[in-house]
């Protein structure tokens, strides 16, 4: 039972995303949410396999964000891919700025290297607003 749930994203989160784009009086059946839940997992597997194959062919061991974007585009999710590339750029810029700020603020504090070796700094409550992208992408990420 527990193993099953591990393969799926939480239904509450999925339901929230679904509700967000529907009119207020719209209702969603539990089975519909469950079906979407299964579809999302399949989507992740499908895209990851494609990205992983690409890495394998190029003799790389690690699947990165660009591989995911490439896989999305290859599999027909072109519009997703465009949004994702911009999102990824913003994210990397944001992380770089954060890293520079942290280095400047304290010379003693060592950058926290997470297990992925990306050297990502802890992200504070400042959220990388999706709104930044939807507005057409300004050149600098704004922090709230």
């Amino acid at each position, binding site marked *: 039972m527990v193993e099953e749930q591990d*393969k799926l994203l939480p239904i509450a989160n999925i339901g929230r995303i679904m509700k967000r*784009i529907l009119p207020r009086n719209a209702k969603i059946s539990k089975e519909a949410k469950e079906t979407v839940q299964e*579809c999302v997992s399949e989507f992740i*597997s499908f895209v990851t396999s494609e990205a992983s194959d690409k890495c394998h062919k190029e003799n790389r061991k690690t699947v990165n964000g660009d591989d995911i974007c490439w896989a999305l585009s290859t599999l027909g999710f072109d519009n997703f891919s465009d949004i994702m590339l911009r*999102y990824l750029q913003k994210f990397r810029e944001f992380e770089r700025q954060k890293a520079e700020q942290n280095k400047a603020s304290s010379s003693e504090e060592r950058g926290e290297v997470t297990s992925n070796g990306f050297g990502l700094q*802890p*992200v504070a409550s400042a959220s990388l607003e999706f709104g930044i992208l939807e507005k057409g992408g300004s050149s600098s990420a704004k922090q709230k």
Partner: protein
Amino acid sequence: MKRPGTYSGILSGGISGRTGPHLLPLARIKKIMKKSNDDVKMITGEAPIVFSKACELFIEEITKRAWNITLQGKRRTLCKEDVASAVITTDIFDFLVNLVSDSAKSEESQLTTKA
């Protein structure tokens, strides 16, 4: 002063569904990615984050299309069959056709055994 690992907290999926700025738990996404393919051994930290956004877009797309079908049927409750129809009528969702028809078939067989 050592800052708590906020990012590692987000990566681990957080407790009680807290996922930081992301709507979907990154650790769970990472698990699903790893299970998809035996070759997938290493994933950068940004990959689950990219997927978090991609999954949102995916859910929105499938929901929009399913809702159109709900409206065509003059209903206000989005049901499983609407999701299945959305999948069948959208080319890029071809990879899901077996998934939605399998669940429809299992329901059918349940009904026939009851009779």
